[in-house]
C-alpha cells in the first residue's frame, strides 16, 4: 500500500479518523470519502489492524530489586545544596586566611611560589567547573519540562 489515494484525498485525515481526533465536519468529510473510495477503506482497515496489534503489545518490566531506591526527597536535596555552599565559603575563607598567614611568614620566594601556585591551580579548576555548570544550567532542556 505504497500508492496514494486516486482521488488525491488528504490521507492524513484517515489517521485522524482512526484515532477519533477530527472535528465533526472533518469526520463527515472522511466518512463520505470512504463510502466511495476502496483504496482509503482498505488503508483504514490495515491501519486499524496495525493499531490493534501495537496497542495490545505488552512489555516485560524490571523486578523491584533492579530499581534504585526512590531518589532523594526535596529536603535532603536542599540540605545537600546548603552543605555545598557552606563548605565552599568555608574553603575559600580558610584558604585566604592560610595564605595570608603564610605570606606573613619567613618562607622564601620559591616556597611562596610553590604554595600559591598550588592554590591558584585549585582555584582555576574550581572556576572552570563552575563556569561549565552555569553554562549547562542555562542551556538545560529540562527547564521547560520542569514547569
Amino acid at each position: 500500500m505504497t500508492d496514494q489515494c486516486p482521488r488525491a484525498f488528504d490521507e492524513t485525515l484517515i489517521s485522524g479518523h482512526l484515532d477519533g481526533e477530527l472535528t465533526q465536519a472533518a469526520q463527515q468529510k472522511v466518512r463520505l470519502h470512504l463510502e466511495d473510495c476502496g483504496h482509503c477503506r482498505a488503508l483504514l482497515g490495515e491501519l486499524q489492524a496495525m493499531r490493534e496489534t501495537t496497542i495490545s503489545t505488552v512489555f516485560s518490566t524490571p523486578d523491584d530489586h533492579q530499581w534504585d531506591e526512590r531518589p532523594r526527597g526535596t529536603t535532603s536535596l536542599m540540605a545537600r545544596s546548603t552543605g555545598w555552599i557552606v563548605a565552599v565559603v568555608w574553603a575559600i575563607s580558610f584558604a585566604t586566611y592560610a595564605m595570608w598567614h603564610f605570606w606573613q611568614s619567613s618562607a622564601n620566594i620559591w616556597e611562596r611560589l610553590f604554595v600559591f601556585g598550588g592554590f591558584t591551580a585549585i582555584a582555576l579548576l574550581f572556576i572552570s567547573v563552575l563556569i561549565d555548570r552555569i553554562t549547562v544550567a542555562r542551556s538545560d532542556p529540562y527547564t521547560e519540562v520542569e514547569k
Partner: protein
Amino acid sequence: MTNRPPKSAVFAADLPRESETVVLAQRGETAALDELARSCRQQAYVFALQLTGNPDDALDVAQDAMVRFFRSLQRFDATRPVRPWLLRIVRNLIRDRARRNRIRRTESLEPSSDDVLRFEPKDENPDPEAMTVRHDLQRLVWRCLQELPPRYREVLVLRDYQDLAYAEIASTLKIPRGTVMSRLHRARRLLHDLVHERQRRTGEVRND
C-alpha cells in the same frame, strides 16, 4: 525481569487522585512519594524501552528520568497530568544520550530484541493458532518499529503503544497538533510498508 502490566493503571484514568498524590508528594509525604515512584518508574521504563529497543538502556534512562522527576516535582503544576510530563523527561533524556552516542541501538533482526515482549492470552479460552499469529505479528511489528527514524518512532509509540491523545502528544513533543496528525500518519504508512515488505520477503506471518 518479571512480567507485569506495562501501563501502571494507578494514574492513567484517575486524574483527581493523581493530583492529590502529587500534592501530598510535594509536601514530602513518604507514602505518596513511594506511590509516585512505583507508578512512574514502570511507565518511564516501558516508554524508554519502546524508544531505544534495549532493556539495559531503558533501565538507565528510566532511573535518570526518576531523578529528574523528583528533583523538579516541587515546581510541577499538580493540576496537570503527570504522564505527558514524565514521558517528555524520558524522551529528552534519550535524545541527549543519542546525541552523545550512548544508546546502543539494537538492530531489528537481533533475537534479543524480542525478549522484552510479553505474550499472554486475551481471553480465557484462547485459540492457540490465532494467538500464535497475533504474537508473531506483534513481534514483527516491534522489529519493524525499531527501523523507523526516531522522529516517526516516537510519535507512533506515543499514540499506538502509550495511547496518548493528540493534544498530549503535542504537549510531550512540543509540536503543533496538526503536525502530530501528519507525522503520525507518515509513521504509520512507513511501518505498514516495512511490515508488508518483511512479510513478502520472508513469508512471515500475515494478519489476513
